[in-house]
């Protein structure tokens, strides 16, 4: 019997999950036996050998498919730890200690479950490729492109809409709808006359924009059910077979539909093809720690790895934008479902429970904007956290009928993840219990800790590095989660108290910050940092006392030190940097030609944004360029598309590494020219992929630690310096403002 026959046999046996069920039952029985009977020496042997094998498997991964074995061993070591942790370390000493011990244990259990689910989800990720469309265009489905908006600026909407209109797809086969919730009848008749007049002006302005561009303006009477209601209103007023939903700032590439629609023809039960969200500006943490061009974005872990894992279990879910949905199936569930404030995930969950399929294509085909400020970032995350917790409470995937078992686990993983604030805050505060009050919250001796906990911790780091190393550096999760935890924790508690209470808050995009400032969100982090620093000092004091339990104190001090390290990075990120451009210049390397007067000069376009670009020019033309302000530029059709000519205004000339760089601004005289420019700047998904690839580098645990540590210390010092200087400046200003005392 060869492997394929064995595979067939197994799959036949496993039709109702029997083989997997037996395997899991055996594994659990073995683990119970383990926890109850294995001595520390045996466990130490297992732990050390396990880590050695994991290391060897990492080296062999390029030659052999070791993924399942690697993850099985890592899971085993962690399960082993948790049995030990559960059965031997929860000792009752006193009520306070025991209560805190249980809280810490629950936080660990949370992490353990998320970790195991993560292994499950990502055990065999699916890297799905686009399916080509048939040659006969008549067979192509019609598509409605919906762009929901509430309060975004016209400029943002114009770019997105024109990019949507520039998509490569037969003109007769798609329509673009601007779904405006900022110009509804309700908004136009607002009791506040200023708001009402602004809404009416907005409606007129956008109607004219749509008319001139060739798209449809849609609005409604009332703002009910927020984004879900807005989309459902548009669904009633359109009729395409498929729906492409784009957030107001999500500029699509021209190949979007060509790369996604094919799956709907191939799989008649397909309800969703989701694509990644790609951002052309740094999020506030990346911006403030200056990591954007070096470190993969926070979202990439989800879009580069986790969604592929979810897709392998037919659980890739709708992320609210950059996704194509089949109208027929969507209407079967009444359109976009809006019981929670994460309507996207909820809609996907509902459709999956009806037995429909989803797909995920890992090719960035939209470029969007991250929130610019920490306030906007936290607002966005609170909405996600509340929405996913709502799903956990109101539509718990473990109980919802119709889902397959893997789908239950996948959705459970996605919603349960959002309880991280509880775990993060517990981990941040737990060392204080021992270092300040000698409370015994983790009852273990050194050898047991070495035998059980250390292999588990090493395995966790190795798995994290194995699964996400290229797209998520070590400790970045801790940084982002702690940043959010302080504010999302109370929000989650509110959801628990009233699951239907949360309302949809729109995330602000495209903000411009004209100066540096300390984020108003900083105060809780000062408190946490000071507490952990005092805990470290208490630990040092304990160390010099005779009779100290050095092991327990040492471990807890290490823990407090780790908290300090993360908190320093947080403080560094809490010094908000000014941001003059709403859209970042994205690097590129596109050859082209410019005409300066009669002179034709070869150039390279070095970076691009909707506003302008940088051209690399031979320095011999410096004098010639200095005499002109307006030039014509034609990029070469490197992506297979002819873009035509663009008019540019030279804004500055400067040298960079011996090359003459001309900073230019796009000038357009017609909407067609604008559309071409938008298609040129934003239309190539290949460019976005290359940019992502340029950031994909694995720093390793220590490299990441050193990088974040240095950034944390540097920017925390700046943070402190800024706050002191800010206070001095304020005092001086106060003095100047104060009336001078009369002279005696």
């Amino acid at each position, binding site marked *: 019997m060869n492997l394929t026959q064995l595979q067939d046999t197994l799959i036949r046996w496993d039709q109702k999950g029997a083989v997997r069920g037996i395997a899991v039952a055996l594994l659990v029985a073995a683990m119970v036996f383990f926890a109850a009977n294995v001595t520390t020496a045996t466990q130490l042997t297992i732990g050390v050998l396990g880590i050695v094998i994991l290391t060897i498997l990492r080296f062999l991964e390029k030659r052999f498919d070791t993924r*399942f074995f690697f993850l099985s061993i890592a899971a085993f070591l962690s399960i082993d730890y948790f049995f030990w942790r559960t059965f031997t370390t929860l000792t009752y000493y006193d009520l306070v200690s025991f209560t805190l011990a249980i809280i810490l244990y629950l936080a660990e259990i949370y992490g353990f479950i998320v970790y195991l689910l993560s292994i499950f989800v990502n055990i065999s990720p699916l*890297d799905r490729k686009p399916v080509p469309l048939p040659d006969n265009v008549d067979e192509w489905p019609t598509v409605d492109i919906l762009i929901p908006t509430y309060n975004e600026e016209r400029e943002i909407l114009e770019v997105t809409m024109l990019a949507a209109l520039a998509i490569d797809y037969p003109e007769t086969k798609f329509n673009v709808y601007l779904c405006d919730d900022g110009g509804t009848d309700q908004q136009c008749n607002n009791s506040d006359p200023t708001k009402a007049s602004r809404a009416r002006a907005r409606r007129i302005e956008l109607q004219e924009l749509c008319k001139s561009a060739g798209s449809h303006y849609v609005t409604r009477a009332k703002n009910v059910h927020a984004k879900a209601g807005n989309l459902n209103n548009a669904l009633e007023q359109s009729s395409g077979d498929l729906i492409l939903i784009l957030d107001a700032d999500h500029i699509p590439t021209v190949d979007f539909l060509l790369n996604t629609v094919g799956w709907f023809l191939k799989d008649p039960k397909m309800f969703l093809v989701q694509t990644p969200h790609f951002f052309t500006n740094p999020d506030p943490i990346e911006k403030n720690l200056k990591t954007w061009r070096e470190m993969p974005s926070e979202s990439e872990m989800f879009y580069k790895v986790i969604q592929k894992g979810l897709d392998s279990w037919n659980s890739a879910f709708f992320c609210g934008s950059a996704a194509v949905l089949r109208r027929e199936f969507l209407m079967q569930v009444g359109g976009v479902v809006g019981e929670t404030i994460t309507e996207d995930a909820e809609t996907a969950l509902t459709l999956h429970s009806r037995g429909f399929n989803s797909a995920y294509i890992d090719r960035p085909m939209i470029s969007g904007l991250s929130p610019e400020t920490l306030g906007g970032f936290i607002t966005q995350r609170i909405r996600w956290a509340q929405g996913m917790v709502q799903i956990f409470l109101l539509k718990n995937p473990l109980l919802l009928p119709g889902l397959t078992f893997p789908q239950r686990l996948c959705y459970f993983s996605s919603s349960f993840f959002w309880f991280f604030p509880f775990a993060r805050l517990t981990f941040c505060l737990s060392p204080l219990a021992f270092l300040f009050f000698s409370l015994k919250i983790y009852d273990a001796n050194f050898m047991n800790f070495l035998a059980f906990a250390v292999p588990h911790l090493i395995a966790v780091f190795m798995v994290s590095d194995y699964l996400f190393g290229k797209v998520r550096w070590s400790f970045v999760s801790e940084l982002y989660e702690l940043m959010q935890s302080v504010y999302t924790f109370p929000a989650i508690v509110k959801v628990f108290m009233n699951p239907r209470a949360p309302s949809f808050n729109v995330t602000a995009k495209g903000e411009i910050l004209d100066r540096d400032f300390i984020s108003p969100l900083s105060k809780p982090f000062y408190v946490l940092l000071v507490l952990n620093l005092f805990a470290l000092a208490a630990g040092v004091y304990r160390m010099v006392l*005779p009779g100290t339990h050095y092991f327990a104190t040492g471990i807890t001090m290490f823990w407090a030190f780790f908290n300090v390290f993360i908190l320093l990075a947080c403080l560094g990120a809490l010094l908000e940097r000014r941001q003059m451009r709403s859209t970042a210049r994205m690097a590129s390397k596109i050859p082209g030609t410019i005409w300066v007067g009669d002179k034709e000069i070869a150039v390279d376009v070095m970076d691009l944004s909707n506003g302008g670009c940088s051209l690399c020019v031979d320095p011999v033309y410096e004098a010639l360029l200095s005499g002109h302000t307006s030039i014509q530029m034609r990029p070469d059709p490197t992506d297979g598309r002819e873009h035509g000519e663009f008019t540019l205004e030279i804004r500055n000339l400067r040298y960079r590494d011996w090359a003459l760089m001309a900073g230019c601004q796009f000038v357009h005289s017609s909407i067609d020219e604008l559309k071409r420019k938008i298609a040129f700047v934003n239309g190539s998904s290949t460019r976005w992929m290359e940019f992502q690839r340029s950031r994909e580098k694995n720093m390793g645990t220590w490299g990441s630690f050193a990088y974040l540590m240095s950034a944390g210390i540097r920017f925390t010092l700046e943070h402190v310096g800024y706050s002191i200087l800010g206070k001095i400046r304020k005092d001086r200003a106060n003095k100047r403002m104060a009336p001078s005392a009369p002279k005696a």
Partner: protein
Amino acid sequence: MNERKKVTPRQVWIGKLGICLVLLASVVSRTFAQAVPGATPATAPAVSPQSLMAAPAALPSSPGTAQNRRSDASPSTVRLPLRQLIGALEPIYLQTAESTYTVFVPLSPRYDVKSCKLRLAFTNSIALLTERSVLRVVLNNRIIGQFYLSREQPNRVVELEIPVNFLQVGSNELQFIAAQHYTLECEDPGSPELYTQIMPDETYLEAVVTWKDVYPKLSLLRDLIDRKLWEPYRFHLCSPSGAGLTDSQLSTGSIVSQGVALNLGFRPFAVTTSNQLVAGVDNIVVGTMNELTPYLTATEVGAINGSFIAVKALPNDPTRFLLIISGRNEEEVSQAAYAFSLINFPLPDSQFAQVDALSFPQKPTYILNAPMRDPGIFSFRQLGMDRHFSVKGWNTGTYSLEVYMPGDLSPLDGSNVELRLHFVYGAALRKDSVANVFVNGQFHATVPLDNIRGASVYGHRVYLSLKAFQPGRNVVEIAPRMVPLVTNHCEMLQMENLWFTLYRDSDLVLPRMLLQTRLPNLKVMSQTAFPFAASPDGIDLAVQVSGRDSTSVCAAWMLLGKMAQISGSVLHRTEISFRTPMSKKNLIVIGPVDSLPEEVMVKAPISPQDIGRVRYQMSASPEPEATAVGPIEEILEKLRGEATVRKEPEQPVTIGMNVKSELLDDTMAISFENPFHLGRLTTVFTAADTDKLYRGIYTLQDRLYWDNLTGTVAVWNNTPRSLQTTRIGPEFQYGATSLVSRTTNKVNSNPIVFAAIVFGALAILALLLRLLIKRKPADPK
């Protein structure tokens, strides 16, 4: 230091039984009261407890009636050697500048002590400064003698008269306290020259005593069958059948003997039997109502309406008692005997009682020395620590915890016993202060007492290898050794801070143990009576008394009494017979050589006639227990399935001199696999004749013999004192341990092999999972 005081289901049950008996006694009393003339007419003859008190006139005048005299009215001399008190022959060492050794001297309430003296033999260091070195002897906190420890006369034997009024009934604290110095200047109090030895074999107490009249009440039986007697306890079991005992009577006598033995703790006892009462010793008469007619008056016989126990003074000898165990039939007699054997429950405060019914818990937990078999957490309180242990000084006390391990505890078990100690200690101790932890006298761990500010420590963990424990009784000792912070030369030492208290809520955590042993092994029998008393009711044991005479019977009863003492329970369900029992049980055969059943002895590895093989032993080069010397070889060997169990250390090799020899005065024990049932054990006790067998079994009760039994064959003699043991014959694995225990042991014995299996299994699991869930990329669902 501590006594095991249990509150077990046994006590609860016994308490209930006691209440039952008291109630019955009161009911019977009321019946008797009703029978008093003038009260309601009754069919039963009128008998009152007082009538039993006046029993001498009612005692049978049949053959064997006790002589009508006070046998022990005249004073006799009794002697109590120190070795008997300390249970060892090794000298007592008194070391350091001040050293104390304490023993507790029992004194029976049955004695009327006329005079008493202590003969003390000791040897002191010749480096001592005579004028400052003193040995004082303290009895119940009163100094009864003091001696200079003279360098000129280091070996001394002295005699001390002990005032009789210094002695108290029960327990007397006898202390030997040595103050030892080698210089008038300041000195090292721990100097090795400071020592005195007391010789336990040559030191003894000697008293002239007379026996007091007994006060016959059932509730006082515990004091009458008294372990505090200085001489071995003797009793006579009077059975109307005499030597012609039935199996049932044999069994009943065994239960009674075990009851007596249990009440004596570990003290030896002697039993005789006949159909006559015997003067000068306590008598127990056992039989049915009809059988006892010759011994009782008609009125007394009429009082027996069921299982019946009564006690009265022995006719014509009020210093001894006569215990009557009876019933209307053998079943009731057996029940009464068993009720008596549970002697440490409170019998009613009357002369007699009727036992209505006995019921037993399903799980026989009603035993004294119950071994701990199941894993779990046991508090010290549960293990007999009745109060916190608190000591002051640098070398002044040790807490001893008794832990009973099962007889089939494997010596290969690599698990750890964990102690979770809760204790406090004083401030200003020097950093090298410690509390040492010993198991069975051997050092195994140290707890540092190194916090200069003192500390209250909760749950300090100490791990003790299970290999340090032996089957049966184990003593875990915690010995604080505290040193003052200031110990400069000639500086005043502050000792008042040297405090250590161990709390009784400290815990002992027992792991899941590998319960599997290799037999035969007389050592295991001596430690725990295993496997004969593996079940506390003795259901797994059959005894054949091959000699049918009364002496052999008594020897068998004494042996079973010893087994009961070791196991702490009455083996009341043991099958005991004159014939060879064929049931699938462990077998004890006891009888003179010429009575031993051939079908049993055919499988014995040695015949009693080959005793020469035991007598003539020689040492040979030791064979290695295992041959794999490196980890790789060990793994390969284990993978090949070889040497999975290391061999036990061998006894000295015996030479096969086929010298025909006779047992002469020796007694012999041979242990081997049961010829009728493989996997069961047979042990034969034999001697040249019944008298020698009786003496041999009596001698065997002495701890000097019993505790040193080992191997598979033992030969011993009292005159001269000798015990030879050897290992002859094949071994077999005893006990069907659970799969979990076996697996656990294998896992922990071979961690690398186990790890290889685990990761191999994970590799297979990973492959299966991969085959199951790996999909072709980009396929639609």
